[in-house]
C-alpha cells in the first residue's frame, strides 16, 4: 500500500538550493486558499526532452511479411452463387470475405481447409490399391482392410473419449462380444452375413446401456478401471467358454459377404473397399454426432467446467449417455461386420495389447478429432501390419512414437499447428518484452498490429511526457498539493495534475462516497458503460480534500513506477 510519506517516492530531494518560490497570481484578489508564496522547484523546460530525445531507446527492426501466395479477390458486382452440402445448410467451403487491412483490397480466405484435405485423403485411399507394389499387394490390401475396420472402431471410440469425455476402455469388449455372438449365431442358426451387423447393433445397444449406467456415477480413472475389468471379464469368459471355441483360439465359420467363387485378389479388393466404406460410415456418424446438436452441447461442458455448464442449463449428462449409447450401437455394428469380414473372430480382440494399440492410435492422432483417429490408425497399422519384417522392433517404434507424442505434443499430430502457433506467440511476446521498454513507445511490430495509428503517436507523446513529469515530482509539490488540492497551483504541480486528469478512462482513479462528508474511498473507473468502478484500496479518507490527495499520491506513485 502507498505510504503517504513523500520522501519514499521522491527522486529529487528538495535541497535548500533547489527550492524556489512560486508567487500566486491570485493572491492580490484575496479569498481563501490563495497563499502568496509557495515553495516549489526550479523551472524545468518541458520542450527540452523533445530536443534531447533523438532516437528510440530500443532497436527498431524492419517488419512486414511478403505475400508469396495468391488470394482470390472479391466478387464485386458479380453474383456469387454458393453451393451447399445437400441437404444441410453447410456451404461446400467456409470462405471468409474481408478487406486486407494493409491495402483495403477485397480478399477471400478459406477459413476451414479440412474438407479439401478429407476429399484428397479419401480419394487417395480409394485409388491406393492401383498404386500398391505387386510384391506387397496382399499384405497392403489386408492391412488396408484392417485399417478401415480399426479406423471405424477408433472413430466410435473417439466419440466416447473425445466428444462425450467418458473414459471407457470397453470399446473392444463391445466389438468382440458382438463379433463372437454374431459368429456363433451365424454358425449355429445359419444367420446370413447381412444379418450380422444388424444383430451386432442390437448387442451393442444392450452392452452400451448396461455400461452406461455406471458412467453416470463414476468419473475418470474409476470408470476406466471398471471398463478395463469388463474387457478382461469378456476375454476370460469367451476364452473359457466351450461354445465360443476355447480350444481353437477363436470362433470361425461365420457367413461372409465375400463370394467364395471370386479369386483371392478380387476377394481382397472387395474386403479393402468394404472396410473403407465402413470407415466412411463411421466418419459420417462422427460428423452427425460431434458436429451437430449433441456435440455442441458437450462442447459447452468441457472437462472440469461441467458444473458451470450445468448451472446454465446444459444437460451434459444426458448428452454424454446418448453419445455413448449411439457409439456402442455403432461398435456392435462394426463387431458384426468384423465377423462377416473375417468369417469369425479371435480372442486377441479382447487382449490388453489390442486396447493399448487402439489407445496409441488415438493418442498419436490427437483426441477429439476425426482426422486424428483416422491418421493415428493409419500410422499404427502401417507399422504393425506393413512393416512386419521389422519384427518386435515395430512395437517398440509404436511405443516410442506414442511416448514422443505424449511428451511433446499437447494434442497429437493434429494439435501441432495450434501448438506451434501458441509457442510462436509465446516466443514473440518474450522477445518483445525483452526488447521493449515498459510503457515506452511501440515497436514496429506492435504498430503493425494497431489499427488506429493515432495510438502509436499517443504512446510516444505519453512516454516523453512522463519522462519529463517524473523529474518534477518532489516533496515541495506533494506538500503544496496536500495543503491545497483544488485551485491554482504552481506551474510544476499544475503540469502534473493536468497530465493525471487527462489520462484515458479505463482504470482512472475516482473517489467513492462511503458516507457523505465523513468517509471516502478510492476506486478505479472501468471506462466501459455498464461496468461499475472497482475498489482499489480499503483505506477510508475522512474528508474530500484528503481523498483528493490520496488519489494524487496514487497517481504520483503510478507515474514513478512506469
Amino acid at each position, binding site marked *: 500500500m502507498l505510504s503517504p510519506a513523500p520522501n519514499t517516492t521522491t527522486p529529487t530531494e528538495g535541497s535548500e538550493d533547489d527550492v524556489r518560490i512560486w508567487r500566486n497570481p491570485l493572491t492580490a484578489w*484575496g*479569498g481563501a486558499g490563495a497563499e502568496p508564496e509557495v515553495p516549489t522547484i526550479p523551472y524545468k523546460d518541458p520542450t527540452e526532452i523533445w530536443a534531447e530525445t533523438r532516437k528510440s531507446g530500443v532497436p527498431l527492426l524492419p517488419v512486414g511479411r511478403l505475400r508469396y501466395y495468391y488470394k482470390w479477390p472479391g466478387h464485386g458486382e458479380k*453474383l456469387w452463387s454458393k453451393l*451447399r452440402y445437400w441437404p444441410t445448410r453447410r456451404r461446400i467451403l467456409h470462405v471468409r470475405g474481408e478487406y486486407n487491412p494493409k491495402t483495403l*483490397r477485397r480478399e477471400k480466405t478459406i477459413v476451414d481447409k479440412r474438407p479439401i484435405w478429407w476429399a484428397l485423403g479419401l480419394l487417395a485411399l480409394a485409388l491406393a490399391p492401383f498404386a500398391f507394389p505387386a510384391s506387397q499387394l496382399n499384405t497392403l490390401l489386408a492391412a488396408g482392410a484392417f485399417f478401415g475396420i480399426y479406423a471405424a472402431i477408433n472413430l466410435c471410440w473417439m466419440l466416447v473419449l473425445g466428444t462425450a469425455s467418458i473414459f471407457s476402455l470397453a470399446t473392444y469388449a463391445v466389438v468382440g462380444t458382438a463379433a463372437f455372438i454374431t459368429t456363433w449365431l451365424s454358425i449355429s442358426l445359419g444367420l446370413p452375413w447381412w444379418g450380422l451387423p444388424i444383430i451386432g447393433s442390437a448387442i451393442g445397444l444392450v452392452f452400451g446401456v448396461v455400461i452406461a449406467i455406471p458412467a453416470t456415477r463414476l468419473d475418470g480413472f474409476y470408470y476406466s478401471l471398471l471398463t478395463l475389468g469388463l474387457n478382461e471379464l469378456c476375454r476370460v469368459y469367451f476364452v473359457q467358454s466351450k461354445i465360443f471355441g476355447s480350444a481353437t483360439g477363436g470362433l470361425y465359420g461365420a457367413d461372409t459377404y465375400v463370394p467364395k467363387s471370386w479369386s483371392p485378389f478380387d476377394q481382397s479388393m472387395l474386403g479393402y473397399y468394404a472396410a473403407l466404406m465402413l470407415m466412411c460410415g463411421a466418419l459420417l456418424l462422427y460428423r452427425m454426432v460431434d458436429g451437430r446438436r449433441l456435440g455442441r452441447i458437450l462442447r459447452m461442458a468441457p472437462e472440469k467446467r461441467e458444473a458451470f455448464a450445468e448451472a446454465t442449463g446444459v444437460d451434459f449428462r444426458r448428452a454424454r449417455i446418448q453419445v455413448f449409447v449411439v457409439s456402442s450401437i455403432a461398435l456392435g455394428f462394426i463387431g458384426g461386420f468384423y465377423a462377416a469380414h473375417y468369417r469369425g473372430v479371435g480372442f486377441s480382440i479382447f487382449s490388453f495389447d489390442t486396447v493399448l494399440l487402439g489407445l496409441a492410435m488415438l493418442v498419436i492422432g490427437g483426441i477429439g478429432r476425426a482426422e486424428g483417429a483416422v491418421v493415428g490408425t493409419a500410422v499404427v497399422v502401417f507399422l504393425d501390419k506393413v512393416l512386419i519384417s521389422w519384427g518386435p522392433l515395430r512395437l517398440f517404434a509404436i511405443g516410442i512414437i506414442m511416448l514422443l507424442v505424449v511428451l511433446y505434443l499437447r494434442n497429437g499430430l493434429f494439435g501441432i499447428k495450434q501448438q506451434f502457433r501458441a509457442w510462436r506467440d509465446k516466443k514473440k511476446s518474450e522477445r518483445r518484452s525483452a526488447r521493449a521498454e515498459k510503457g515506452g513507445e511501440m515497436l514496429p511490430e506492435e504498430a503493425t498490429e494497431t489499427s488506429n495509428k493515432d495510438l502509436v503517436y499517443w504512446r510516444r507523446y505519453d512516454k516523453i511526457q512522463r519522462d519529463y513529469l517524473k523529474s518534477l515530482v518532489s516533496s515541495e509539490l506533494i506538500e503544496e498539493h496536500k495543503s491545497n488540492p*483544488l485551485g491554482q497551483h504552481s506551474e510544476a504541480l499544475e503540469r502534473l495534475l493536468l497530465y493525471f486528469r487527462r489520462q484515458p478512462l479505463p482504470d482512472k482513479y475516482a473517489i*467513492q462516497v462511503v458516507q*457523505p462528508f465523513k468517509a471516502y474511498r478510492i476506486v478505479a473507473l472501468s471506462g466501459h458503460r455498464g461496468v461499475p*468502478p472497482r475498489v482499489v484500496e480499503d483505506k477510508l479518507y475522512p474528508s*474530500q480534500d484528503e481523498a483528493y490527495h490520496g488519489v494524487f499520491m496514487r497517481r504520483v506513485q503510478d507515474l514513478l513506477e512506469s
Partner: protein
Amino acid sequence: MAQIKLFGYTDRISVKPGEAVTFHVSADGAATAIAQLVRLVHGDENPLGPGFIEEEVSCEANGEWRVQKQYTQLGSFLTVDDPVGKLALEGSMSVFGFIFPGLPGDGRRQCLIGRWNNDKSAGYCLGISQDGHLEFWVGRGDEVDYIKTEVPLMKKTWYFVAATFDAASGKATIHQESVTNRYNGLLGSVAPIDYRSHVAETFRFKQKNLEDTPFLIGGSRDFHELRGPFVSQIFSGKIDRPGIYDRALSRGELEQLAKGTLPSTDGLVAYWDTAEGYTDAGIGDTVIDIGPNKLNAKGYNRPVRAQTGWNWNGRNDCFRLAPREYGGVELHHDAMIDCNWKPTRTVRLPESLRSGIYAMRLRAGDGAGLGEEYVVFYVRPKQPKAKIAFLVPTASYLAYANEHLSFDAEIIQPMTGQPPIISEIDVEMYKNLDFGLSTYDSWADGNGVCYSSYRRPIVNMRPKHRMSSMGVPWAFPADLSIVGWLEHKGYDYDVLTDEDLHIEGVDALKPYSCVLTGTHPEYYSERMLDGTEDYISGGGRYIYMGGNGYYWNVAFREDEPWIMEVRKLDSGMRAWNARPGEHYLATTGQKSGLWKNLGRPPQKLVGIGFIAEGFETSRPYRRMPDSYHRQVSWIMEGIEGELIGEEGLAYGGAAGLELDRYDLTLGTPPHTKILASSGGHSDNYMLSIEEILYPYPGLAGSQDYRIRGDIIFFNAPNDGAVFCGGSIAFGQALPAKNFDNNVSRLLGNVVDAFIKPGSLPGSHWISEEKQWR
C-alpha cells in the same frame, strides 16, 4: 436476498393541488414500500449549510404501497400495426432499404427489416450478423436458414441493401451496394474500398410466421419469463426508405431501387417513405407507408428523424429545404425515452397543498442507500396568489438527466480540475442502462443524445444528490438552496416550471411581481424565451439567479412536454457535435444550437451571458463603483465592506462554476449597471468556446479580464427590472452561515423592492451628474 432498490417517476411534473399524479415505481428485493409525501426545503447536505430539510405532508397516499420489479424497453425502433397480417408473407419476398450502420460487428445481431421471433426462431428478417455482415434469414422454429454477404459492412457508410427469396425454388439472394457520395459518409472515394456484394444460395425451407410476432424495423420480438415479450437485437444506425415485396425481385429491379426510383407497385406490400409527411413545423413519430396497404410505422423510444438520408448531397442543410434528402431515421439500441412502467399508484393531491417542490418519499427495507427514493414533482398554485414565483428550470434538469460524464467523458477531469466523487446511486445508474442517457452523453455508436425525458427515474433530480464530476450539488439539488432561502426569509412564493412557461408563455409569469430563476436555466425553447422577454418588457421584475442561462435552443412537442430535443452544434460548450446537415430540431423545424448564434444572446434578455466555466474554486464578488449610484445603492443596503459572497456551498464563494458577463456588443441594455464583479479566478476557468475565434495562451482565469461574474441591474419598461446574480454559485451562497450572509442580504433587498408595487427605489435619481467632487 437481493439488495433493496427503489426507483420511480411521475407521469407529469407540474401539477396543481387536488389534481391526480401517477407514480411509476420499480422495486428490487421488496414487495412493499412506505410512501410519505414531503415538501422539499433544502437539498444540500453540506455541513456548512443548513443540511437536508424536508417537511412531511399529510396525504391520502401516505403509507404502504405495493411495489414490484418493472422492466424497461431499451432501444429505438419502428413498429408496424399490421392487424390482418399483410406482412406475414408466406412465400416469396424481397426486402430492401438504405442503411447507414453505426455499429456493425459490435458482437450483437442487429435486425433491420423483418418479422422475426428471436425466442422461437421463426419468421424472416434482413439484418446484420454479429460479425458485421449483412444477413437474411428465415426460420421455421426448429431451424434457421440464412444467407450473408461476402464482406462486412463498413460503419457510417450508406448502403443500398436487399434480399430476395423465391419460395418455389428456395433461391435466396442478398445484395449490398454502396451509395456513397462526396458528402454523405465517413470515407471518401480515395479509400480503395469495394463495398459491393451479391450472393445467392438455396434455402432448404421457407419461413414460418407466428401469429403474434410483430413486424419491426430495427428490432425483433424476444421473450423473457418474468418480463414477457420485448424487443431485442436493435439496430444502431440510420435507415432510409425500406420496403417489402411479396415476390422475388430481379437484379435489374433492385438496381432501379438502388438508384432511388419509386418502387413499382407490382407485388409491393409496403414501402415506408421515411421522408413523407414532413411539415415546416416538425416531424412526428409516424413513418408513412405509401404502398397499397398503408401500413404506417411508428417510432418507439423516439427514433431521431430529420437526419440526412442516403441521397443527401451537402447542398441543403435542413429537412425543410429538401425533405427528399432527409429520409434518414436514426435508431439506437440504447436509446430510452419512456420507461413505460405500469402505474404503481395514482395519487390525488390534497386540495390545500401549498405551491412548492414536493416529493413522494419511498422507503423499503431499512430505507438506507438505494432503499430510499424521492420521486420529485412540482406543485403550482390553483390560482396564482403570491407575489413571487420561483421558476424551476426543469428543461435544464432534462438536459442533465442521468448524465454519465464522470464515467464516460475523458474530458471531465481536466475540465472540473478534480477527480470525481461518485456515490452509490451514480454507480447504480452507470451499471444499469435502463436509466437512459442525458444530452451530455453519447449513444453507443458515438452520436450525441438529442432527446431526454422525465418519464424515467432521474437520479440527479432528487435532493441530496451531488454532481459527481464536480463534487457539488448541481441543478435541482442546488436550486433547493434558493427554495431554502425563500422559506427561511418567510416569503410567500409560488413554484412554476419551464414546462408551464413553455405551454402558457408569458401568461404563466404575468400574475407575479417578481420571478426568480434557478441556478442554471440553460435550456430554453423559443416560447420560453418569448414569454420571459414579454414578461420583463411588460413590467415584470426578473431575477436571474444563475449562470450560463438562455443558452441552447430546445424544443418540445405540443402533446408530449416530457420529451425535450436539443442539437448541439458548431459552437458553445458542448458535449457533442451534431453531424453536418443535422442541425435542425425534428420537433419544430427550428435550428438548434446556441440562442446567441440565432440572434438572441442572453445579454439581450437579461443583460449578461455566459463567459467562462471552472469547477474547483469559487471567488467572492467585489462591489463596482456603479453600485454607489443612488439609483441602485438601495440594493447594497446593510452590506459592509466591498466583498460579497465570501462563503458558499459551491466551492466556498458566490462567484463560481459558470460565470456570466456584461457585454454591450451582445446586446446588454446600454443603461445596465454592473453592481459587483468577481475576479481572480483560477486557470481552471476557461473562456467559453463561442467567445473564441482564435485560441491563444492566456485565455484562462488568472490572465483574461473577461473571465468574471457580473452582478448587474437594469430598469425595464413599465417599471420592470432585471437583477442578475452572475454565476451558478450565487444561489448556493445563500444558505451559508444559516442564511446570514451578505449575498442573502443583497438578494433580500432586491426581492423586497421588487415585490413592492409602484416604481422602484432610486428610480428618480436619473439626472445628469453635476459634481463638486
